[in-house]
C-alpha cells in the first residue's frame, strides 16, 4: 500500500488520493490525537494499521488491544485523564464495545469512535452496509443516552468530520461516533488533509492527573439513589436538547421546488444524488436531503420541507431504519416511501431512479397539492 507511506510524508495542503480509512486515521492524528486503542476488523483495519506507524513515529500512544472490549475500556481510561482519544471498529466490534460506550456516556467523557459499518447481523459480511443506524443512534449501550453521530459521504467529508468529531466531543463532554460504511472506508478519492496540530497538553479540570496540591477527582458512572441517578439522567437529556438545537447538519440539493424529497445518508445518500440528478434531467421535480448528523437528526429542516413537498423517498443500505426518523420528522404530513438494499449490496443509481419515478408517479396522480 504505497499510499500509506505517502500520507504524512506529504505535508502539503494539496489534494491527494486517499483511502477513507487512512484519511480518517491521518486526520485524527493531525487533529491532535493523543492515544489510539483498537482491534483489527475488516473493513476498518487500515485505520489501525496506519496509526500503528504514525502514532509511534509522532511519540504518541498506540496500542492494539486483545479485544474490542479491552480497546474501549482503554479508551475509557485514557479519556479519564483528559487525553484526546479514539478507537475504531466495524459492526460486530462495535457490539462488543457497547458496554464500555455506556460507561463512557455515564462518566461524561469526550471520546471519538469510528464505526465502518458492514453487513449483518452476526458475523454477516465485510461489504458496505448501514445496518447499524439504530445501534449507533438509539442503542449505543445500555441506559438512556445518545452519542452524536456523524455520517460522511465522501473521503473529504470523512476527514472534515473527524476533526469536527473531536471538537464536538470536547465541547459537549460527549461521545461522538463517526458512522461510515465500508464503502467510505475502502474507497479512494482525492481529498485534502488538515494541517498538523500538536497535542493539547492542557488538561480539563475534571481529568485524573493525581491529587497533587488539589482535592481528589473521581470518574465514575454510579449514582446509587434514584434521585441522584435521575438528576444525572436529566443532565444528559438537557445536553442532548442543546445538541439538537445547535448541531443538526445536512446537505441539500434542488429543494426549492421539489415535489418529491429523497433522503439518504453516507454512501446511499451519495448514490441517491446521482439518481436525483438523472430525475431532474428527465424533468421530475425531485430534491435531495442528505443528513450529515444522524444524531441529532435534522428533523427541523425535514419538517420544514414537508410543508411544501408532496412526499419523501428514503434510501438506505438496510431494511429501513432512518426511515423511522423521517416519519417522526414529517409527522404524517406527507407519505414516506422507502427503498433499501441489504446484505452489503450497494444500490445502483438506476435502481434508485426507478424507485424515484415510481414514487413520483403515485404522488402526482393521487395527491396533487
Amino acid at each position: 500500500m504505497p499510499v500509506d507511506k505517502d500520507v504524512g510524508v506529504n505535508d502539503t495542503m494539496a489534494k491527494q488520493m486517499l483511502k477513507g480509512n487512512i484519511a480518517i486515521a491521518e486526520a485524527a492524528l493531525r487533529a491532535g490525537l493523543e492515544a489510539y486503542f483498537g482491534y483489527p476488523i475488516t473493513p476498518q483495519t487500515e485505520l489501525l494499521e496506519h496509526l500503528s506507524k504514525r502514532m509511534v513515529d509522532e511519540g504518541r500512544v498506540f496500542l492494539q488491544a486483545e479485544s474490542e472490549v479491552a480497546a474501549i475500556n482503554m479508551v475509557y481510561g485514557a479519556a479519564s485523564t483528559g487525553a484526546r482519544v479514539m478507537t475504531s471498529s466495524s459492526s460486530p466490534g462495535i457490539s462488543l464495545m457497547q458496554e464500555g460506550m455506556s460507561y463512557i456516556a455515564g462518566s461524561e467523557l469526550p471520546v471519538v469512535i469510528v464505526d465502518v459499518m458492514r453487513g449483518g447481523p452476526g458475523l454477516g459480511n465485510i461489504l458496505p452496509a448501514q445496518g447499524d443506524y439504530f445501534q449507533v443512534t438509539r442503542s449505543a449501550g445500555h441506559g438512556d443516552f445518545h452519542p452524536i453521530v456523524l455520517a460522511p459521504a465522501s473521503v473529504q467529508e470523512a476527514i472534515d468530520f473527524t476533526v469536527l468529531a473531536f471538537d464536538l466531543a470536547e465541547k459537549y463532554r460527549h461521545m461522538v461516533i463517526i458512522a461510515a460504511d465500508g464503502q467510505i472506508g475502502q474507497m479512494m478519492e482525492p481529498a485534502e488533509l488538515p494541517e498538523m496540530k500538536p497535542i493539547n497538553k492542557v488538561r480539563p479540570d475534571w481529568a485524573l492527573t493525581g491529587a497533587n496540591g488539589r482535592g481528589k477527582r473521581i470518574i465514575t458512572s454510579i449514582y446509587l439513589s434514584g434521585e441522584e441517578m435521575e438528576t444525572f439522567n436529566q443532565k444528559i437529556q438537557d445536553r442532548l436538547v442543546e445538541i439538537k438545537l445547535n448541531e443538526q447538519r445536512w446537505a441539500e440539493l434542488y429543494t426549492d421546488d421539489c415535489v418529491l424529497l429523497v433522503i439518504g445518508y453516507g454512501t446511499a445518500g451519495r448514490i441517491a444524488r446521482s439518481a436525483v440528478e438523472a430525475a431532474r434531467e428527465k424533468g421530475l421535480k425531485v430534491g435531495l436531503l442528505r443528513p450529515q448528523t444522524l444524531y441529532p437528526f435534522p428533523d427541523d429542516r425535514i419538517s420544514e420541507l414537508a410543508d411544501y413537498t408532496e412526499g419523501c423517498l428514503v434510501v438506505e443500505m438496510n431494511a429501513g431504519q432512518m426511515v423511522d426518523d423521517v416519519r417522526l420528522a414529517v409527522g404524517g404530513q406527507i407519505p414516506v416511501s422507502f427503498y433499501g438494499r441489504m446484505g452489503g449490496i450497494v444500490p445502483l443509481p438506476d435502481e434508485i431512479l426507478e424507485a424515484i419515478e415510481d414514487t413520483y408517479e403515485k404522488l402526482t396522480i393521487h395527491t396533487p397539492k
Partner: protein
Amino acid sequence: MTIQAPEGMELIYSRPESLAEMHTHYCPGCTHGIAHRLLGEALDELGMRERTILVAPVGCSVFAYNYFDTDACEAAHGRAPAMATGVKRTRPDNIVVTYQGDGDLAAIGTAEIIHAAARGEQITTIFINNAIYGMTGGQMAPTTLPGQKTRSSPDGRDVEIAGFPIRMSEVLATLPGAAYIVRRSMHDVKNIRKAKKAIITALKVQEAGLGFSMVELLSSCPTNWGIQPNEALQWIEEHMVPYYPLEDYKVIEAVKNL
C-alpha cells in the same frame, strides 16, 4: 479531623493520609478494610499518594474510589486492567493501581488481566481472593473451593459441573511481562505484615518500570460464608491456604535488587 496525641505521648497509629476520612460500607469482619489500610500505608510510606490513580472494580470494593484520598476511576466489571492501561499509557508518570476481587479478575476479567500482565503493563494489581461473589450475595466464584457451599452451589461446588477453581497467581506468573506476582493472606498479624511488604514491593516494581506486578490477598467473607469473623480467618488458614499456597510465583531478578 487530624488525630493528635495527648501531651507527652507519641502518636503511633492513625489513618494513613492515602485513605479518605469516611466510613466504609464493608461488613463487620471483612478483610477489605485491612487491605485498604495496607495499600494506604504503602502509598504513604512511598510518598505516592499525590501521584496515584486508583482503578476500582465492580464487586464489594466498587466504592474503593471513595475510600482512598487519591484520584480514582470506576471500571466496568473485570475491565480494570484495560482501563488502567489507558490511564497509565497517557499518564506514565502516575502510579496506577487496580483493586479487584476474584469475580472481577478471575472470571469476567480474565482476558484483561492476562493481557495486561502479558504486555508487562506498568500497573499494580491488588487481587482480593475470598472465594465468593460478595456484593451479589454469595454466589460461586471462579475461586470457590471444591465442595464449598455458596448461594449458587448450594450442595457445595461440584467440580464435575462447575470445574475447578483457578489459581490466578500461578497462571499470571507464566507470562514474561509479569515482574512480581505473589500470594499473601490476611488471616493473622504475621501474614498481614507480609502482605504489606509485598504491596510495597509491587508498587516499587511499578515505580522502577520493571513490568506488571500483582499481590493476591486471601481474604475472608464472614457474611456470605455464613460464619463468625474469627472462624472466617481460621477458614482461610485451614481451607484456602492449602489450595492457594502463600508463595512468590514470579520475582524477576531486577525486583530483588530494588
